[in-house]
């Protein structure tokens, strides 16, 4: 049998498996994971678009809003700045005591929203925020990509897809069907891994690209066009590549785990924990994780989680990120090693369906 024949055979196996990965009911939650980040980004875009159209008729000059000082009364503010775009009044106070009237006013100067907070008719607090901030949104996307997409969505998605390739067949009592095909076990492994990889990459790279697109949608046209001319396409490419790289790494790990361990939840927890504490490990140990290579491919470094406990923030000492070439080579080397271990295991595996 020639290498070409085996490659064709692996491709046949991949094609057969692909249909199952893409169209099975079991994969629906993987789509959900991949597409979920698009939902809040879509919601954000809609909110911005609606606000822009709603506020368009009631723009107040920025100079007027800047002239308002804490201590001004609400009546004075209304007289100076005119009708706000949004107003809310409520009374609150401790039981048995007289309640205080609170009033929140929102103004729009064409770019920023101004939030004015009054207590008993006196301005207590004034702050402003741009209706949409491209820089901030890109940072938020970087955080979402690093903390949700790579660490959770790709992780659990790959867990579902790649564990299913062998362990799922064992649980379904259908693995013998593949073993009775005239194909070497390594070819079967390669075909199944390829199928999982194509499916996971397509699903997650598309999901990342979709979220990225939805993040860009409501941005200012001028800023957006400048972004597209500069780093835009590059950012999109590297986000999609990082998602794909995550699938390459986690896919091989979970494929091997599905072959080596009866209950893959145990290695999943161990890997989740290991990848989770990646940032606080010594630099040398950080290199033994998928995340180390994958996150350095993302175009914007992850922002520090503001909600993380102070101790964790103190311990966080990210190792120097590898160069892109080193990251890709490192990831491929780790993947090749894991797949080699998996191929040794698949040759030894026997059909002896248990009671799972």
């Amino acid at each position, binding site marked *: 049998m020639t290498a070409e024949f085996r490659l064709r055979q692996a491709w046949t196996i991949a094609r057969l498996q692909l249909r199952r990965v893409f169209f099975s009911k079991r994969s629906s939650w993987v789509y959900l*994971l991949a597409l*979920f*980040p698009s939902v*809040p*980004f879509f*919601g*954000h875009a809609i*909110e911005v678009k609606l606000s822009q159209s709603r506020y368009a008729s009631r723009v107040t000059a920025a100079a007027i809003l800047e002239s308002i000082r804490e201590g001004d009364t609400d009546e004075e503010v209304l007289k100076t700045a005119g009708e706000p775009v949004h107003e809310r009044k409520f009374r609150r106070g401790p039981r048995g005591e007289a309640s205080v009237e609170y009033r929140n006013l929102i103004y729009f100067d064409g770019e920023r929203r101004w939030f004015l907070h009054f207590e008993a008719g006196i301005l207590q607090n004034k702050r402003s925020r741009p209706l949409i901030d491209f820089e901030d949104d890109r940072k*938020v996307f970087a*955080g*979402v990509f690093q*903390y*949700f997409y790579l*660490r*959770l*969505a790709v992780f*659990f998605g790959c*867990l*579902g897809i790649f*564990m299913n390739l062998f*362990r*799922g067949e064992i*649980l379904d009592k259908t693995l013998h069907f593949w073993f009775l095909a005239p194909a070497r076990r390594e070819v079967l492994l390669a075909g199944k891994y390829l199928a999982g990889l194509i499916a996971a990459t397509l699903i997650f790279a598309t999901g990342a690209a979709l979220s990225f697109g939805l993040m860009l949608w409501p941005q200012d046209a001028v800023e957006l066009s400048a972004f597209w001319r500069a780093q835009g396409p590059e950012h999109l490419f590297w986000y999609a590549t990082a998602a794909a790289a995550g699938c390459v790494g986690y896919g091989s790990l979970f494929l091997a785990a599905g072959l080596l361990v009866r*209950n*893959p*939840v*145990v290695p*999943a*927890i161990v890997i*989740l924990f290991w990848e989770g504490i990646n940032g606080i490990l010594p630099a040398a140990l950080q290199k033994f994780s998928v995340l180390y290579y994958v996150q350095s491919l993302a175009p914007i470094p992850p922002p520090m989680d503001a*909600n993380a406990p102070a101790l964790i923030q103190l311990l966080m000492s990210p190792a120097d990120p590898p160069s892109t070439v080193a990251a890709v080579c490192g990831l491929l080397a780790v993947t090749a090693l894991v797949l080699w271990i998996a191929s040794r295991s698949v040759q030894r595996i026997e059909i002896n369906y248990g*009671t*799972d």
Partner: protein
Amino acid sequence: MAVYKRGYTRYQGALTGHWARFFVLPRFAWRRLLEQRLVVILLVAATFWPLLCAGFIYVSNHADLLLGFDQKMSAFLRIDSRFFVIFMNAQSVFAILLSAFAGPSLIAPDLANGALSLYFSRPISRVEYVLARLLVLLGMLSLVTWVPGVLLFFMQSAMAGWSWFASNWQLGVGVFFGFLLWILLVSLVAMASSAYVRWRIVAGALVLGVFFVLAGAAELTNAVLRVEWASAFNPGRAMNQIWCAMLGADPIPGPNATFCFIVVSIMAALLLFVLNRKLRPVEVVS
């Protein structure tokens, strides 16, 4: 051919009581669970934090040991609602892990092997079946949640004296009911997952996925929409807020305890709906 008439006579002997029959399911399940190495390892691992906390209580109640510490350190060593909320947060993780390993083996095998019709043909109703399975998890998770929590509370009461107990009794009550609420939610997630996917192993992964992914999704929503309400959909965070309210601790940033409680109740109702849909004695092959 001779045909012999045989009259059927039903069993005339004594029957066990209704409750004895009800406890058959949990009794055997507990025994089976304790035979699982992973469950035992987790149970043992879950005692480390309570033991540390016990040590902490001991140190904080020995004024002579505290001599020389500044006021800041003394405040740190105070046993109050904050101490119990931190304790509950740590133990709640063990409850999730334990339910991910122990929970799915309760229902998934019954569904996969078509055993439900067998159970329901006995005098066990669907509700009793669910309650019996819930009881298994309740017993198991209690060992790592409210039991050590209440023991710590009594230990502190014994060391700090009657006056401390009298002014802090609501902490003990809060620990007990707060953990019961958590056990209920975690158990429902484990049972619904195992009823939904039918594979023991996949159900375990799903239990973990529900808690981790929901937490991530909630924070993601907060970050993108610049809001705080989505934290209520993170079960751990929502429960933390509820515990703060129950124990009288300072609330954490985010939606208030009432909103969190409403969201958690809706989650529980959805999980019960899944159980109701999936636990049927008949199966339709599509």
